[in-house]
């Protein structure tokens, strides 16, 4: 029993075959002959100039689409953000927001931001295929106190079974930044500003790995209050994929009852906030704990800001 050889097709199937061959061939050829490679390196350099010239401290630079980060070669030192969901960012923490876009992604983002109440300050003339715009944020908050920047002022403890072990050694951490080192598990048991991949972007945040037992407490004295404590926190991508338990973050003022925030494994840079008094000072503590510390890489940022309304 020898097998069949060529298969003459029924007319209907044959027509489909020809359609696939012609359609696929023509479409494929046309696609690769006209594929949009985006702007040239020179065009991107040129388009980045308005940002380089006009950037001020505290400005936010949003880069879209998230996978096209060549512009970082020009503005990477200014902390740009190329994320999948730019509207989920802390827009209210910035007075001015830059948009840099290619592949036609810039304009829709500008439109979305203006729909959120931001005002288009300037749309720059840049090479074809690029979009650069500056928006003012009239509803922006004023940051009064940045916990990350003031880490040196904090006291760090490991609290376990009612006792506190001070993490009081101030040592040099990544990139020369300081860190509060706990006396054991020195590889990971410390608090320090570091860049970590939080979801789809590396962020500068306070590394604060929960201990195997008890709580890691980061306590800031004499924090000026201004209405809100706002922060972002969650698992690093590595922790999100490999850890086994959520993390509890307790925020307390002057030793009062804490406000608890629970960060599930899939939460990577989720916002949290607490209402505070609008004047005076307080000791603010962040307590980090979990029932399973294995690979539970946690990082957070927080600030005190004046704000009447916060983005959801």
């Amino acid at each position, binding site marked *: 029993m020898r097998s*069949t*050889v060529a298969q003459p097709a029924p*007319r209907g199937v044959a027509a489909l075959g020809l359609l696939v*061959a012609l359609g696929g061939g023509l479409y494929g050829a046309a696609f690769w002959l006209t594929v949009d490679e985006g702007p040239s390196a020179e065009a991107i350099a040129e388009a980045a100039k308005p940002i380089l010239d006009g950037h001020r401290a505290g400005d936010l630079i949003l880069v879209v689409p998230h996978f096209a980060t060549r512009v970082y070669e020009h503005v*990477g030192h200014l902390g740009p953000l190329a994320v999948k969901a730019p509207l989920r960012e802390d827009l209210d923490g910035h007075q001015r927001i830059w948009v840099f876009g290619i592949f036609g992604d810039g304009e829709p983002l500008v439109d979305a931001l203006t729909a959120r109440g931001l005002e288009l300050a300037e749309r720059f003339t840049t090479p074809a295929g690029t979009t650069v715009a500056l928006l003012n944020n009239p509803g922006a908050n004023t940051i009064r106190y940045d916990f990350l920047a003031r880490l040196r002022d904090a006291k760090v403890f490991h609290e376990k079974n009612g006792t506190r072990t001070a993490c009081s050694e101030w040592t040099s951490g990544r990139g020369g930044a300081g860190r509060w080192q706990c006396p054991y598990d020195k590889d990971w048991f410390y608090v320090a500003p570091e860049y970590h991949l939080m979801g789809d972007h*590396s962020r500068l945040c306070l590394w604060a790995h929960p201990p195997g037992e008890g709580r890691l407490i980061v306590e800031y004295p004499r924090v000026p209050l201004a209405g809100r404590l706002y922060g972002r926190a969650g698992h690093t991508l590595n922790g999100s994929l490999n850890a086994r338990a959520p993390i509890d973050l307790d925020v307390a003022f002057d030793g009062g009852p804490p406000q608890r925030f629970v960060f599930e494994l899939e939460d990577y840079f989720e916002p949290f906030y607490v209402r505070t008094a609008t004047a005076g000072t307080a000791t603010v503590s962040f307590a980090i704990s979990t029932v399973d510390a294995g690979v539970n890489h946690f990082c957070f940022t927080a600030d005190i800001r004046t704000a009447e309304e916060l983005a959801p």
Partner: protein
Amino acid sequence: MKNVKTIHIVWLIALAYVAVLWSTASSVGFTRDEGYYFKAAQEYSGWWGVLFSSRFFDAFTATEIAKHFSYNTEHPPLVKLCQGITYHVFSEWLGVTSPSTGFRVTGFLFGGFSLVATYLLAKELVDERTGVLAALFMAVMPRYFFDAHLACFDVPITAMWTFSIYMFVRALRAPRGQVWRRAIQCGVVFGLALATKLNALFLPFVFILLWLIEPPDPLAPRLVRAPLGGTDVRLPRVPIVLWTCAIIGPLVFIATWPHLWHDTFGRINAYLLFHMHHEHYPALYLGDLLIKPPFPWHFPVVMTFYTVPAPIVLLGALGLLRALVAFVRRRNLADGLLLVGVALPVFLIAMPDTPIFGGVKHWYNALPALSILAARALWGSLDAFDFGSRPAIAYTIAALTVVPGALAIQHSHPNGIGFYNELAGGYVGAARIGMQRGFWGGLAYPLYPTLNERTVGPTRVFFNRTNYDSYKMYRREDVFERRFHYANEPRGAQVAVDFAQPEHAEQQGAIWSWVGTRPVAGVYQDNVTLIQLYVKGQSNAPPP
């Protein structure tokens, strides 16, 4: 077309393929595994020096074998032995290639041979024109083209897998006078396939299935009169080729691997166990970073759909459906073989407990059957509308199905490892839907020659996914100056390479913390970021 002409055409295509691979190889960076295989091939090749010397008998001692074959025992030796030979011939003796290209020539040759093997199988199962078109389809697959440059095993096993099946079918169908000769040939080829890569261990499943589909003798047990009276039950006769594969195959496998000449069974066991507990290769897939099983069953299906040029994958899908219908209607070897030829490699990866293999290369051995199905579907469609009487139109349409792949290769080289087809929207479209952009550390190569101008004095470089053995080969070939040293982590490095691979992206945070946040250069494909380079002192400051 006369047979002699088509085979000549296919050899010409294969030759041209090898020539293109050879001429474009210098722009392809060393992938992670290549570093290991360069080292292994060089070590293995030292054994030839002992074998062909006055120390001939020493070559068989456990000590001498351990000296040359103890490294990289997780993969069989054939390709590495060949790499050692091509390295010595083309780089050391003739001096016509760099050392790395010398090792890679083996891959080019297997790449060309895979086209010929595809043609031969298609010719055996369908006809010659299908074979020619299928060989062309294989030649214009951008990811396959990329991998055919490498000193790795995936393209060689595709060639040997396909050639083994071809030899088996020929042996199964052998006329009486040639049964033994073809069976022995098949046993040897199967043994060489076993010596190429692990995938060949699954060939017996294909062989047995083919026997069951097209048995030379009836399969059903029969009652026959016994020679001395009474009745015997005659069991189905197992074809000789299955016996030769079962006996000669393993013997050839062991014979080609000196490592197995001592403690044979223990070492074969260790080889198999390694792969049963293989590490997982994470992959970004439709926005999800997959790091542990179970993998989505559709992973290899979707990846094939998005990485094989559109006309080929669509015609292949049509051909697959037609083969399925035809096989259900009437069991036959050609359809059965082509179905299983596509389905088995994909199925093995799709199984939920299979260690995660992120790259499409792990089921490349499905591509020849897919190409044959695609080519058969096209010719079948053309025949149905009687284009046979207008060959110019038929050949034009056939050529049109090859063009997108050829253009895509031209567009994607040397970044073909992260290629996505026009159905995915190319590199940009794939990045939008959250697909892996690259892996194995080779994409950073264009940046390495520029290190010489970017820094002065002794410099520690965090090469990240480019491994130490690849670094050593770059150094050996003077890609960068000798003052560059390999750093295992960003801490303390003056230069760091960041790969756009989320599974290793924790390194980006360390690079940003230690070196700076502004890349000074990068590798981009259609403006999709693949690699970025950071230099201390420059990356935390504005551009000059």
